[in-house]
């Protein structure tokens, strides 16, 4: 019997799955595609939560997620990558196999630390919160373990997806003003990061952030 809470959890699990898939990605355009699909599942999750809690604001939030994260940001990132013609592979500090294993450990850790009574009021779907936490940690992990600046942006966006998932799962949706503010923030952040990547590319001839340590001193 598939009740609605299980369905939300399933959608959350898909978000987590694409975050893990993100760490296994070898190519930048594939990473952007994965991010786009992950955001699609996020928007579905929020939409279903809106059905469940009968909260009109969540529909709007879901629509904004779809518009910005599934369509606008991937479009923009694709444009940037095409413009600076990144054809190199993703250069990791930690290789793909180990990365996937570590994301597994992160997920276990996230479930482990949230096993107690975390918040007094009821959850819509109890197991979405540890999933969201795992997505946050994996996003940060991507930022740490990859050298290319564009992948770090994708890591940051993954992290942001995790935060939104966690926020909606705990609080039944943020106030709409905050929501719109966060979306706007992320959108502007992504655009600025894209511009920055372009600048980095032109002045360093590479997107490898490990080469930026020359800037010290």
């Amino acid at each position, binding site marked *: 019997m598939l009740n609605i809470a299980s369905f939300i959890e399933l959608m959350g699990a898909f978000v987590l799955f694409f975050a893990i898939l993100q760490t296994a990605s070898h190519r930048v355009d594939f990473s952007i595609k994965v991010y786009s699909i992950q955001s699609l599942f996020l928007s579905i999750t929020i939409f279903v939560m809106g059905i469940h809690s009968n909260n009109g604001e969540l529909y709007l939030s879901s629509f904004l997620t779809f518009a910005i994260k599934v369509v606008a940001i991937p479009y923009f990132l694709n444009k940037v990558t095409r413009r600076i013609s990144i054809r190199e592979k993703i250069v990791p*500090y930690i290789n793909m196999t180990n990365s996937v294993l570590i994301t597994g450990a992160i997920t276990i*850790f996230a479930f*482990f*630390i*949230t*096993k*107690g*009574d*975390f918040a007094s009021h009821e959850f819509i779907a109890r197991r979405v919160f540890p999933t969201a936490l795992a997505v946050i*940690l994996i996003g*940060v*992990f991507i*930022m*740490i*373990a*990859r*050298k290319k600046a564009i992948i*770090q942006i994708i890591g940051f966006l993954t992290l942001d997806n995790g935060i939104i998932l966690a926020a909606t799962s705990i609080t039944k949706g943020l106030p709409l003003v905050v929501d719109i503010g966060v979306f706007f923030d992320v959108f502007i952040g992504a655009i600025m990061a894209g511009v920055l990547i372009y600048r980095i590319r032109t002045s360093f001839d590479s997107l490898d*952030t*490990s080469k*930026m*340590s020359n*800037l*010290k001193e």
Partner: protein
Amino acid sequence: MGQTNTLNGAVILIAILFLFLLSIPFIISFNPKLSLIFSSVIYLLLSVFLLFSLLYGFAKFPLLLPFSAQLSKLFGLRSSTSDHITYLTTIPYLKFSYLFDNLSLFFGFLIAFLGFISSLYSFNYLYEEHYKNKSLFVILFNGFIISMLFVVFSANGLSFLIFWEIMSILSFFLVLFEYEKEESKKAANLYIIMTHIGTFFIFLLFLYMFMKTGSFSFEAWKHLGISGGLSVAGMTIIFILTLLGFGMKAGIFPLHVWLPKAHLEAPSSVSALMSGIMIKTAIYMMIRFYFEFMKSYGWGFGFTILLIGALTLIYGVLNAGIQDNIKRLLAYSSMENIGIMLMALGLAMIFYSQGMYLLCAFAMMALLFHIMNHALFKGLLFLGSGAIASQTHTKDMNKLGGLVKKMPAASFIFLIGVLSAATLPPFNGFVSEWMIYQSLLMASSVNIEIIKVFTPIFASVMALAGGLAALAFVKAYGISFLGRARSQGANSAKEPPFLMLVSMGILAFLCFLLGIFSFIGLMPINKVVKEITNISIYKNIAISYGSIVTLPKYSLGIISPVGLLAAGIIFMAAVYLFIKIFGNMKIRIFETFACGLENKDVYNISDSQISKNVCNAGNSNNHEGNNDNTNNDNINAYTKINNAQYSSTGFSQPLRRIFEKMYNVKENLINEEYKRKYFFPVKNYIFKAGDLFECFYNSFASKFLEKISKLRAYIQGGVVQTYIAYIVGTLIILLIWVSWFYHAG
């Protein structure tokens, strides 16, 4: 204790009067000469007043003025029934309270007296050395002396610390007085760093005492000592912190590094004050802590002090022997004397812990007498070195020589100081060191095996140090005053001005006076000793004809300085008569003997030519204007020969070779020109005598800093990912913390 010293209104009035008088030199500092004359008069008055009140107590002051009570109320001063003057502030625990007991009066007297001497000396010295900002010197100098006075009279931990810091900082600025010189900056930096490390330990010490008593006043701390409220561990903490904190200022063995540098760089009248009395304020606080704030401790503390004193002594004297700079030599000699004082202090503590109060009083008397004597003769020597430096413009003994003919009066006065410092009779250094020897020998009557075993070792260390000190001072006097001039500066030296001679002469006279009639000096000291140990031993040791006896109960030695002088005079007369009768008394006037070198007659040149050209060896190529001189080469050859006299570096070479491991000496012989490798090569001999421990500290500090910077480079790699990882690491740790400690139960 202190009944005779109960303060009355008259004393408070006098104190206020002196405060006003002491501010006058600051106000008129725009005229340095006038200000220094004023300050010397005021310090003389103050020292007489302090000596008088030390000898006869405050009760003798008959001028009880009717309005003194109102005056003291006006200034917020409060004299309780005890011997304190207290100035209350609104800040909690901060009370400016002052204590006038015999110990602080004794030290205050020494400070005021030495202040009088050095301001008299500075009157001429400032203009001889051509210092630029003389007014600044006057302000710093007077502030330094006054802050030292406040340090010894403070009776509250916090106010003590305030004045202690003022003293340290003012002396720092005085060390930095010639701030254009790179060495001055280095010395001053080292000094301020080390003295602040010392102050850090003093802070810890005072905080510990505050934790124990809940008060910063010395009176409460004294009650703590009397009530015996300290455990052995507590006393050990106090002992170690006192040793580290005040030992830094005193320059005890491993913490002495700042001392030779700072004394070298300060103006001479300031070095005289620093060496003469400032480093002894640390000994003063050690006496306060070990005899007033701590009671009934074991003999181990005293033995530790004795051991450190012996190490300080031997290290100081070994380094004094090899120095070429006359002020550096004197500074290391100060370190040696601090060692002697610490040995006396350690002995007094051992006797005190064993309940042998007679011996304790004797050792304490020897200690205080040596403090007084060292202040006199080391003050004299530093002032004398200043006189030399101001006349010859060098402190390097390898460039001095022949000064005895250029400045006969100054060299005679300096000779007295040298003889005192080399502990020879009939001068004061001998008497006090003899007393310390006696108390050391009497330590064999202590019923503890270790002390019995170590006593002869310490005695032999002291004997060795005495011999080495004599060597160092023979070098100091012989190389700089005898022989022929080694440089133009030494050749053109003149007698220093009148007031410099007078101020040094007063000290020299006192060295002689206290060496012959030592009981004059022991009289005020007896008052101090009586206050500390409740025993008056003056009658026991000073019998008629000016002789000093060790205590009759432990009769080991008896000495009569007057008798020694008489014996010396008789001996000299006998030798003179012997030579007169049997010897060849033909007097031949000839050029100064310079170790078998040829004299100027060989070169057929006149005195005026020599004084014009002498001693430019080394830079002998600057004779463009002397083309008319036919025998230029002769003069140059002669000047080179003068430099080939037995030098200071050569004199100390045996010592350097024997104790090679104790020094950090760098010697190099460099060929200047390779073309003339075989025919009269020009060679340059470079000699540098550094301090072994300074080298050690430097290498330690550089290694430590290297480690730190490597660690920093490792942590701050400049890679973006690392910084994110730090954030995440913190987040994860916080998450674990929250989930385990807040939601586990």
